[in-house]
């Protein structure tokens, strides 16, 4: 198969593939953070509802979606492994215990809704309800901590930056979750759901400011690394998006609010990517160009991704349009 081997001669169409994959990784991470984020957020809001019907409504709202949403994490992990194997290995083994915390939270989180519906007795449901909340809050917090450590180039599992980013990401999931629940459940959940979202978006902005301040102190070139257009633009945009989110949620324009939450998520992820670049692992100083796999597998993966990503988008369009609109009274998990 000489044609396939010839793919190793140079980058496909002369494209800057290492940078494209670096960007693609953050798109995948952002997509995971937004999609699984709104069902994590729904899990956090679940804690504030004590009426059984309301709790069932939350589970029914995320039922068809959460599994597909979570696969974005697997896709992100696989893509990181495939494109920057040494970074994958260093990053995951360096944050050994944190990674296992994330996995534990995801296990709890994944099982809980399925188990909750298996038996309709109060003790069983109370227990799985708690697991659902714990997993939904812990998973984004620990993932945020992981991302914070990654960005700050820290070798330790728990750092101040990590904790602050963890809080920011958790609040961001509540922001998305509130908009999603308002959109999907109509008036079947109390008005307070919108208030949680609005409170969370305020807290989120504070946490982002705290993160930037910590980074300014910690990064080698200090504030200069942050006072660049590609960083300033998404940060300013975040403030505007947050304001738009609040207005939209108050007016009941829930789809707009959910869109603003998506915008906030991608803005956060793009700030992380821009601050990190050209490094892909600030702790070791490995740059995107150094850590990328060799040309042949990179080209093959790029072809694979170019074919599969539109297909995946189609799957999600099918899924979300099959279950579009507010859920009705008869729907169960």
């Amino acid at each position, binding site marked *: 198969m000489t044609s396939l081997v010839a793919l190793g001669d140079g980058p496909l169409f002369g494209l800057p593939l290492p940078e494209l994959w670096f960007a693609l990784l953050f798109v995948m991470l952002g997509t995971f953070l937004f999609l699984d984020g709104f069902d994590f957020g729904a899990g956090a809001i679940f804690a504030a509802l004590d009426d059984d019907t309301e709790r069932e409504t939350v589970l029914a709202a995320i039922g068809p979606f959460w599994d597909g949403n979570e696969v974005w994490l697997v896709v992100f992990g696989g893509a990181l492994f495939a494109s920057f*194997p040494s970074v994958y290995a260093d990053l995951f083994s360096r944050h050994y215990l944190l990674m296992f915390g994330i996995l534990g939270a995801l296990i709890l989180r994944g099982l809980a809704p399925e188990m909750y519906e298996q038996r309709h007795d109060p003790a069983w449901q109370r227990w799985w309800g708690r697991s659902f909340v714990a997993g939904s809050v812990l998973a984004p917090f620990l993932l945020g901590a992981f991302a914070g450590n990654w960005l700050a180039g820290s070798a330790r599992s728990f750092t101040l930056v990590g904790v602050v980013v963890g809080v920011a990401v958790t609040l961001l999931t509540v922001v998305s979750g509130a908009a999603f629940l308002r959109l999907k459940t109509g008036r079947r959940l109390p008005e307070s759901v919108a208030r949680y979202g609005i409170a969370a978006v305020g807290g989120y902005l504070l946490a982002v400011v705290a993160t930037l301040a910590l980074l300014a102190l910690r990064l080698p070139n200090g504030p200069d690394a942050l006072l660049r257009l590609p960083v300033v633009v998404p940060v300013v945009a975040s403030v505007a998006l947050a304001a738009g989110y609040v207005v939209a949620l108050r007016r009941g324009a829930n789809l707009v609010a959910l869109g603003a939450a998506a915008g906030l998520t991608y803005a956060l992820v793009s700030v992380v990517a821009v601050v990190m670049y050209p490094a892909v692992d600030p702790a070791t100083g490995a740059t995107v160009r150094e850590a990328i796999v060799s040309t042949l597998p990179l080209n093959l993966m790029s072809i694979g991704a170019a074919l599969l990503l539109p297909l995946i988008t189609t799957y999600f369009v099918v899924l979300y349009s099959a279950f579009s609109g507010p859920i009705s009274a008869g729907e169960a998990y």
Partner: protein
Amino acid sequence: MIDPVIASRLQFALTTIVHIIFPVMSMGLAPFIVFFTWKDIRTGKPIYERLRRFWTKIFAVSFVVGTVTGIVLEFEFGTNFAAFSTTAGELFGGPLAIEGMMAFMLEATFLGVFVFGREKVGDVLYMISAVAVGLGTWLSAVWILIANSWMQTPRGYELVTENGQQVVHLVDPIAAYLNPRFGYMFVHMQNAAVESVALFMAGVAAYYVFRHHVWGYQVEDVDFWETTLKIALVGLLLTAPLQVVHGDMYGRHVAETQPQKFAAMEAVWETDSYVPEYIIAVPTDLADITNPRAKDLFGIGIPGGASWLASGGDPTAEIRGLNSFETEAPPVAIVFWAFRAMVGLGFWFVLLAFWGGYRWYTGELFEDGLLHKALMASSLLGVLATELGWIVTEVGRQPWVIQGVMRTSEGVSPGLTGAEATLTLGGFAVVYLGLLALYTYVVARIIRSGPPPREELRSTASPTGEVPASGVANDD
């Protein structure tokens, strides 16, 4: 504190052994569920809707538990086997990434439509989603087995030194991904999954059929279980003989490509010809059970049998003994016994399939209590045989993580401490055994509560649509 290498290996073994149960269930159930859905849509007969909904519940639980345990495996390559991931990432990471994008996405998104969408989408899209879910489970196996089979028979790569570390570079993707082992592994694994599920279905159905026809209890929905038993038997008749025939070819392929593993499977220490096939072998000293250098087995064997198997018909063929390899042998006792148990079970399943098929032919399928008991007792043995097969594959290839290229001990994360590895090993032992218990409990509950009641079916549903839209909904 356990040594990080040992702890990482134990942890990976534990998480894989538990994880594999769930993909076996979902891959094995996939063709049955596609069949039930197709028949449901085509014929509109309530029995097929009930079959689809009942087995979809078990599929959905298996899929969820499979997802959460599978994410762990993907991440363990980074956390515990960082040196392996750095060395082999270029070849190994690609298939994992494609698996996520091509297969897992397909499966997870369409499972949402399939489980929750019967009332929401049309027949065509519903059928497409059933096929997409089934196809997704099988495509997952394609990419995972490409990655695994490359470790068994690595091809299409070259070793390059980068930053003082040996790194695998992909040079020939076709040779690497369609490596010699892949086809054998894929056929053996997928057939094993369907066979395991057929046995499981047959065992569950036999329980109800037995209670009704043999013990004379009044079992509701006995027609549901009778149909299940027949469908499971068809599955078993198709898969059990194939598994034995194919397994024999697979064994010969191992003898050619991984002679050290084959020698461990047969416990051959010294290179010899006319090697017997031991049916039973016992170490003469108890301490030798865990000793990789154990010999002096007391055994009962068929003369020339192993040579005959390895060469494909020549009882005088030479088999290379474990002592002739430079590397330490894998734990022979585990490989030897796991292999024997797997093969023994494989023959037992063929016997069961023919026995059931014969009773069906003579019209006594529902009256043969002994057959029912045998099926009930065998309901989990297919999964056990699959586990044993993986133990032969994975333990048998030790000490290599990539055959002939990298040893397992060299693949472990360099910075990993014994304390960290022991802590997570302990944590996962608790969590995974808990998961297994929980899964067993939930599946047992689904089976005990039986098929969905007739009044819940679509055909008898009220026009207001007050019917649970979900196959998972369980109204307790």
